[in-house]
């Protein structure tokens, strides 16, 4: 997994609530058996004017000039601002894969759907929950000033605005440790191999029908 310590980047505001994972990466791209290459199709139905299918040359497809990710001023954005319940719907990890492959390092939203939120941590894409008031202010600042950047300081759990104003955010201690170190969950869990085996043996005795 990618490490996440501190990041400064251009912010793009996606001013919609309930952005679902079907919107983030439509189902036709889920047929891939790879983990990478989803970035050009992130938000496909909003980003392009035509219908996208796997294998198309995305660079020559007509773009929706009104979609925020297509505006010149937001090219190269690495931080996505969103509203409530971001990432709702399907459990497809292809959604965080697509956002990461597009270039995003973090998503800041009022709230996230549980599975999406969890999936982000598994690949080192940082989801940050932010109060509605603070988010309104960030949307305002991003829209007002071209080239608006934010710094995300994970170690100190702070969003640092370019005017010096800092906004603290919460994160589970364990998840933070994993992100800061880029630790692989599986490796960590396998440190408990013996405990898992003992648990399993006891379970087999108590509920043998689970092991038929």
């Amino acid at each position, binding site marked *: 997994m990618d490490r996440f310590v501190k990041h400064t980047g251009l912010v793009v505001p996606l001013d919609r609530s309930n952005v679902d994972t079907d919107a983030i990466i439509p189902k036709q791209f889920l047929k891939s*058996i790879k983990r990478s290459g989803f970035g050009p199709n992130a938000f496909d139905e909003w980003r392009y004017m035509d219908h996208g299918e796997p294998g198309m040359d995305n660079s020559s497809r007509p773009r929706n000039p009104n979609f925020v990710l297509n505006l010149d001023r937001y090219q190269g954005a690495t931080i996505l601002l969103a509203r409530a319940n971001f990432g709702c719907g399907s459990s*497809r990890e292809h959604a965080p894969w697509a956002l990461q492959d597009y270039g995003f390092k973090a998503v800041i939203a009022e709230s996230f759907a549980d*599975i999406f939120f969890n999936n982000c941590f598994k690949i080192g894409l940082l989801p940050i929950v932010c109060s509605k008031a603070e988010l309104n202010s960030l949307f305002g600042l991003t829209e007002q000033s071209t080239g608006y950047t934010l710094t995300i300081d994970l170690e100190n759990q702070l969003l640092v605005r370019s005017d010096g104003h800092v906004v603290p955010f919460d994160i589970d201690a364990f998840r933070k440790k994993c992100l800061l170190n880029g630790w692989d969950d*599986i490796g960590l*869990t396998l440190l408990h191999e013996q405990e898992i085996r003992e648990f399993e043996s006891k379970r087999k005795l108590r509920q043998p029908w689970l092991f038929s």
Partner: protein
Amino acid sequence: MMARTLYQKLWDDHVICTEADGTALLYIDRHLVHEVTSPQAFEGLKIAGRKPWRVSSIVATADHNTPTQYWEQGITDPVSRQQVETLDANIRSVGALAYFPFRDPRQGIVHVVGPENGATLPGMTVVCGDSHTSTHGAFACLAHGIGTSEVEHVLATQCLLQKKSRTMLVWVDGVAGRGVSAKDIVLALIGKIGTAGGNGYAIEFAGPGIRALSMEGRMTVCNMAIEAGARVGFVAVDDTTISYLRNRTFAPKGDTWDKAVTYWRTLVSDEGACFDSTVCLDAGVLQPQVTWGTSPEMVTGIDGAVPAPEDFSDPVKSEGVARALNYMGLVPRTPITQIAIDKVFIGSCTNSRIEDLRIAAGVIKGRQRAESVKLALVVPGSGLVKAQAEAEGLDKIFIAAGFEWRHPGCSMCLAMNDDRLSPGERCASTSNRNFEGRQGGGGRTHLVSPAMAAAAALAGRFVDVRDLV
């Protein structure tokens, strides 16, 4: 001992160890696998040189990509075929308790296949790389969807890292009336608490309105817990649960059955157990529900009308409604019964079980699909459901009424195969998501119960099925 909720009992029974911040390592009993979210996990396992921890926990099937007709031609889309063949190869290489590949008589939607084969048992932790894994909560399981990294994690370690959720009790009073079903209960709940209402919660569905439901109905309710934002939704064990499981293929037999039943009976919330939140709903007064927008929370009764953006004071919500109405091609204040439809889809992990098909067939028997309805599709949830329906003659009722009777799979719920809406087409669908483009780019989805979908197919628009049954 303190009174415990069912969630707490399920949690306690699976914790191996806990980190200082409460992150726990939970043991996973059942791992359901399908072709879309598993290839990268198997590949990761292979690259890391790891072996699956316990292959007898795996039940696999191909469902998302599989076609629902012309099976003799195989899977003609090469990209879909590669994904299904990758699953075949992976399961062949590692093994499984059961594998129901494409065209197997027991193949079907993973959330239909697990329970009907008795592979979903009370007290289990059940995971799958699919958000509708909450379905299995109907059996008092701790069941939820996971991402592909977690699929790999479960394959490699038989565990998941989890933080405990808060608990929500959804108490359903009253019993749904004639023509009103489990689907209407859960849609009404989502309308009430919103699609984020259950975020961070594990929902226990209880009360007379839930007790009165069959296992099929309970699966429908738990299936859509995720649409209310909750990863897990479940129902306590009772006689309905036990009698459903008796003699299922992978359910215990003989003395082990008795021992299991004794344990399963304990899988209820204790008297006096505390929940972090409680929501009440009266099923007795519910109308059949119909969604009008692009989120399952955009729902109303059949007597209702499409709202206007100005009905909502929150500007983000108001804009969301305006965008939804624009996408759906609907004018504010249109009565639901004036919305004409182009297609009908009866299927999906929400509503493709035998009971759903019986109800739909009951509505259309001796009647005809409206001429204006271009396609009315019935896709049974599994090969076993299909065979049972055919044994009861339901297929003939559907075909006689002008419906198409297809092979099992996820089909037009998410349109990964050829079953899909064309841009602008409007569908009465028994599936679970009405998101933009869900059933095909530009397609317009209205979520309803099987009875309401059947009624809409006859009338060519939404009508109150209570007038027909």
